[in-house]
């Protein structure tokens, strides 16, 4: 049975399922219990994560497995790598992906590389949940979409769901995967609703989804920009242009075959991303099309991305920063 849940509730449900089905799953992060368990003050449940994604875990699974950490990302992310290496299956919450700035070594030089450096004689089944993207007026240090950075590191996997059902299924897949996975939760859609199946199910890592079928142009999105693409497709339909929408879901592994299959159907492609344009996922998909899909292209690949600038605070500027439906429509029209 599917029912409607918020994106953040779907994540919460996945965490409950994962912890109930595997005693090795532990949840670490700032405020993940959020001060729960203060019996002296009559408090059992408290925050359950700054976004509420870990609500109820403390009551259900206890203090040993649900741990508030110090504000010390390098320390607890590093500890999670060590725990993963020795038999636990930690799910770490890095409150905002921007905070990887103070915690990069455990991800870059440890989690990503230990298995390879040790000749395959190690596994790091770690999931790093983190909130990404602009849209909440959170300014330059709480709004970045840094998934391109983690997707570029061999040994890490990176996913970014666009809807609650995928959020639940991909998170369960990420937690049960034996490789380290960075799981991105776009903050602008955390509190939007969608149908989510009940119970235990997974969505495979490394597989894109066809969010809308079409024949004239392919719009590729990730996370929130899938919704931008869908809105643009609707507007284009009114003009008589049939747009297909590909939801990447996984940035690493990247489902290049799905992108190329769609390009083969449409001959034209626009990649929409909330991150800046340099060395990011939009550039990566464009390169894929040039390398392996050149003969399929009826027009140059177009990218609609954020500019090469930090995310501004002022609502007037932030709204200019993120890709909009209007910019996607303009890009499609310019392709002729």
């Amino acid at each position, binding site marked *: 049975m599917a029912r409607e849940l918020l994106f953040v509730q779907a994540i919460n449900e996945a965490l409950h399922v994962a912890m109930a089905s595997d005693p090795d799953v532990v949840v670490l992060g700032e405020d993940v219990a959020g001060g729960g368990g203060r019996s002296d003050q009559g408090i059992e449940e408290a925050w359950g994560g700054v976004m509420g994604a870990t609500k109820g875990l403390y009551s259900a699974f206890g203090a040993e497995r649900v741990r508030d950490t*110090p504000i*010390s990302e390098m320390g607890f992310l590093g500890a999670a790598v*060590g725990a993963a*290496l*020795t038999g636990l299956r930690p799910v770490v919450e890095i409150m905002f992906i921007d905070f990887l700035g103070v915690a990069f*070594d455990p991800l870059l030089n440890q989690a990503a590389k230990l298995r*390879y450096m*040790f*000749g395959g004689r190690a596994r790091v089944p770690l999931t790093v949940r983190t909130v990404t993207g602009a849209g909440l007026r959170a300014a330059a240090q709480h709004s970045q979409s840094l998934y391109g950075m983690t997707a570029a590191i061999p040994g890490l996997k990176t996913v970014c769901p666009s809807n609650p059902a995928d959020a639940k299924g991909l998170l369960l897949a990420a937690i049960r995967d034996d490789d380290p996975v960075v799981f991105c939760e776009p903050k602008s859609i955390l509190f939007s609703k969608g149908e989510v199946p009940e119970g235990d199910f997974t969505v495979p890592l490394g597989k894109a989804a066809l969010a809308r079928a079409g024949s004239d142009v392919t719009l590729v999105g990730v996370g929130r920009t899938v919704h931008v693409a869908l809105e643009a497709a609707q507007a284009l339909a009114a003009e008589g242009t049939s747009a297909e929408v590909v939801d990447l879901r996984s940035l690493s592994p990247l489902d290049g075959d799905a992108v190329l299959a769609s390009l083969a159907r449409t001959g034209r492609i626009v990649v929409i991303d909330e991150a800046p344009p340099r060395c990011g996922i939009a550039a990566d998909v464009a390169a894929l099309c040039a390398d392996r899909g050149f003969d399929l292209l009826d027009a140059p690949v177009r990218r609609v991305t954020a500019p090469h600038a930090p995310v501004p605070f002022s609502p007037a500027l932030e709204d200019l920063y993120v890709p909009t439906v209007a910019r996607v429509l303009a890009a499609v029209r310019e392709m002729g």
Partner: protein
Amino acid sequence: MELTRERLLDAYRRMRRIRAFEEKLAELVTAGRLAGFLHLYAGEEAVAVGVAAHLGDRDHFASTHRGHGHCIAKGVEVRGMMAELFGRSTGTCKGKGGSMHIADLSKGMLGANGIVGAGIPLAVGAALTAKVKRTGGVSVAFFGDGASNQGQFHEGLNLAAVWKLPALFVVENNGYGEATPTEFVTPVRDIAARAGSYGIPGVIADGMDFFDVFEKAGEAIARARAGDGPTLLECKTYRYFGHYVGDNLAYRSKEEAERWRQQRDALEGFERRTAGEGWLESGALRAVDAEVASEIEDAVRFAEASPFPEPAALLQDVYVSYEET
């Protein structure tokens, strides 16, 4: 733990094995038979072995760029280690890690580490596993005086202390972070004093004296196993070679190095003590020396005779779940 004759001989064997292994590497590099960055542990043997003497395979070590000694102390086979340094497929890590990444999880060895301080949170995490899964294991992070200025040190100690994890932090203070004297960059004379910030014991041991390290590590490990939390153990020691093989040592005097070698050497000190107490006779130690020497020669022959990895290995083991193409 009682130091029986067998245990004493085992400790001596491990210390001698480390010394012989490292001296052989220096010789191989000088002769142009071996490449790569090599940071040798010779001089510091009493630290790794004094700690390891209390531990088994369920206990973990996280190490440093100067990691060969920790590997040998933890029981990693020298044939595999030597082959790893030669980049051969028979190496401990199939030739893909090299000196700075030798690891053997079957021995509880979580790896040497090329990033200064990075082993500390890994050991904290292994201690968390031990606590959550109730393995009874203890996890030890070794690191240098230089690493005690890293954020990973402070964050790792804080986390282990607040969670009362079964961990031991062993700082090997050899007086230098690469070429820079410790006092140039570290405002406290004793790094053990930093334990106070985390509400855990800070203990100082003579890192050139196996017996002193053994005793103090034993107390800290017993404390960790009892659920009373971590300890910071500072071992004052000295590295005989430079930061790496090929270091011109322009930053320290020959006299200083000679003084440590002649007056403080861990192996000689061990022999004096065990002979003086009547625990071990020199004949037994010389027999160990000879066995170790042939072990190391055998390891070099094994390594040089081993094949390099096949080209396909380049893309193997990037991920568990699929192979890169």
